[in-house]
């Protein structure tokens, strides 16, 4: 049984409400943190080695350290709850069942960053979650954890819930800031970075829900103690939202020391693949990260066991590895079609592109149309190379990472599943009736032995 820091009390009846939460040790970290100086809290977070849980995995302490502190200009903390990545639903669970954990983390982080007006930007589709948060904020305020002069320390903090209108792009931090300001959610061109000029041109930190919630155990147990959990630079625990062809889909908290194989097959976590089917492929971190075939997922290209950690999943770079991403763990069994799946993702990114810069606006739609042709048996062999060329020209040439996020799944699918694409093109009639199946995607990879 792994360590549980965030979901420790998730099973308790009524933990959603203030009384039960407080009875189980809630808001201890606020009491502790408000006695420290803001610099000490930032130092603790730096010591903990906490990395952003939203996808990029940027060290949180370092991000906080970048925040500009000009005299007389207010600073803001914004919580990014615009969780729209297909396959990721960990933040929703956290906010729905443990809203006070997020609020606790927000108060501590606001104090550390000197933010008196803190925002939760929540995606528009999470209507009921926004209501839960509003209620939790009201409860916290009633009990003196928010508002003016918190715990008599003279620190004022207000938390506002801002609902988005349902755009994936608003999960990108600068687009989120634009949207929060009431403008069209177009990503800004960086520099200036939000740490210098963010919301209303004031220094801003944007953090993921899980990152801010993880600040609570860091303060409670100390940064150094938190850093002892996990492997290497992957410290602490991570929430994974497992879905797809597994026996027990849901949210799991792992301490990043277990192997991918254990995560999929052990009864404590996903519980294996239903109906005795075989594993074909998996997206380990939300739809944007590269898809991996079964053989590369369980073992790295060097033949070592792949560990569920930031470094473990990224082992081998994009050629034979993937990314931890936002933790949306999608499992595909032998009956799934990679081409169809890639097409679905391409359609999603085409729909969600903001239309600001040309490679992403035009390229995502083009990729979707080609993939649709291949999927429905109208493709050509040259289309596969064309897709590769398009994704190459989108990746890295756009304003925000949505272009990369649209390009990576297509690139990885072609890189690892080219046979399946070719089979679709060469057998148009057959491909409409059956799937390519498991093929050789679970065969062990030949590892050259060092002489």
């Amino acid at each position, binding site marked *: 049984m792994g360590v549980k820091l965030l979901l420790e009390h998730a099973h308790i009846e009524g933990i959603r409400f203030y009384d039960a939460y407080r009875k189980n040790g809630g808001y201890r970290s606020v009491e502790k943190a408000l006695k420290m100086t803001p610099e000490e809290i930032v130092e603790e977070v730096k010591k903990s080695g906490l990395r952003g849980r939203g996808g990029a995995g940027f060290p949180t302490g370092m991000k906080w350290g970048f925040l500009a502190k000009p005299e007389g200009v207010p600073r803001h903390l914004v919580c990014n709850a615009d969780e729209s990545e297909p396959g990721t639903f960990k933040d929703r669970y956290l906010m729905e069942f443990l809203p006070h954990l997020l609020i606790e983390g927000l108060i501590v982080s606001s104090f550390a960053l000197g933010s008196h007006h803190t925002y939760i930007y929540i995606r528009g589709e999470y209507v009921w979650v926004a209501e839960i948060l509003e209620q939790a904020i009201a409860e916290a305020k009633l009990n003196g954890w928010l508002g003016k002069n918190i715990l008599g320390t003279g620190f004022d903090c207000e938390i506002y819930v801002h609902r988005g209108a349902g*755009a994936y*792009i608003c999960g990108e931090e600068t687009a989120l800031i634009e949207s929060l300001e009431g403008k*069209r959610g177009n990503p800004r*061109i960086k520099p200036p970075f939000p740490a210098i000029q963010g919301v209303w041109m004031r220094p801003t930190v944007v953090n993921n829900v899980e990152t801010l919630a993880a600040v609570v155990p860091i303060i409670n147990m100390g940064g150094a103690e938190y850093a002892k959990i996990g492997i290497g630079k992957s410290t602490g625990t991570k929430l994974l939202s497992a879905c797809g062809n597994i026996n027990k889909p849901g949210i799991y908290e792992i301490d990043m020391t277990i192997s991918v194989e254990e995560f999929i097959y052990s009864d404590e976590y996903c519980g294996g693949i239903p109906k005795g089917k075989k594993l074909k492929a998996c997206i380990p971190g939300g739809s944007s990260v590269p898809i991996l075939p079964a053989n590369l997922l369980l073992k790295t290209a060097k033949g070592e066991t792949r560990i569920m950690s930031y470094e473990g999943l990224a082992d081998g770079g994009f050629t034979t590895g993937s990314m931890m991403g936002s933790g949306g763990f999608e499992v595909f069994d032998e009956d799934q079609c990679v081409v169809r799946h890639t097409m679905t993702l391409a359609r999603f990114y*085409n*729909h*969600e*592109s*903001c*239309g*600001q*810069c*040309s*490679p992403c*606006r*035009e*390229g*995502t*739609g*083009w990729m979707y*149309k080609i993939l649709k042709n291949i999927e429905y048996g109208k493709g050509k062999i040259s289309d596969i190379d*064309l897709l590769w*060329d*398009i994704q*190459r*020209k*989108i990746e*890295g*040439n*756009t*304003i925000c990472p949505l272009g990369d996020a649209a390009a990576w799944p297509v690139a990885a699918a072609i890189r690892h599943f080219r046979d399946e694409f070719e089979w679709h093109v060469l057998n148009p009639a057959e491909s409409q009736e059956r799937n390519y199946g498991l093929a050789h995607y679970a065969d062990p990879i030949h590892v050259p032995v060092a002489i």
Partner: protein
Amino acid sequence: MSEQPKFKVTVDNIQIEVPAGTTILNAARMIGGDVTPPAMCYYTNLKESGGKCRTCLVEVSKGSDKDPRPMPKLVASCRTTVMDGMEVKNITSDKVIDARKGVVEFLLLNHPLDCPVCDQAGECDLQDLSYQHGSEKTRYEFDRRTFEKEDIGPFIQLHMTRCILCYRCVFTADEVTGCRQHGVLDRGDHSAISTYLGKSLDNEFIGNVIDVCPVGALTDKTFRFKNRVWFTKPVDAHRDCPTCTSKVRLWMRGDEVFRVTARKNKFGEVEEWICNECRFHKKEVKDWVIEGPSKISRMSVISQGHYVNTHKAPVLIDKVIGKQPKLLMNIHTVSDVNRREVDLSKIEGPAHSEDFKTTDLNN
């Protein structure tokens, strides 16, 4: 006030000293010629413009003297400021040329290519761009995106199908007219320039959106289908206007004024904004004081037939590659025909290859 610090920046092996805060694009424009990246969305006079079209991508191979690491991705030169000692690769980088080719292909993907009936043809930035940086063929095999026609007023014609979403007209309305009635609706590849519920644009300076539009998406209704721009002759003129400086360019044929636009500099950018009164209503020669023919780039199709006051771009190839280009073949040493001592009249009948007794190339 202390003097602004100067930064040394190298673009394609050519070094130039520019004031701090200059963007890479503007530094390259100071050098001029081939090393200037194309810009479809950046507009010097519009503060927030740039960074969207991605045609001006360049490679920064050395960040600065202090931090010589190269930048990991290609950067938009119009929004990246120079650092001291920065080294930039534009036409000398294969990565840039490849990426730019990709961007041009993306821009043309859904463009209708109706140049033969488009009023912008001949002065269209996208035409120039695709001619200079694009490939001759598209690989796109699908139907192009189309839009419903929309009426945005009596003077400005909107062709949304031609739009490349550079946002220039949005920023013009924001920053020049101070009252924006149009914007970008929707998102992704179906995002469109439009007004809220089809209102018309009426504003004293809104006509300037026609000039800033790099393509034929916004055109002048008073000039629509009247003439091709290369048949009209541009002359600079002014008048006594109460609202603007009225430094305009008249596009004339004979004594007839077909069109009035603002004057543009060599980067195709408007020098001074003009008002709607000057642009749409003063179409008689007697309204204007004519200053003389305009300077037009000799590369432009508009300058055909009247090469007055043309300016030539500097030739920089020797500086970019660091030496004079190698002469592949000197015709005078290869063939006898051009030798002074050979009398051409002595060669009988039509010349055959044997008549041109070639000398050994090594001699």
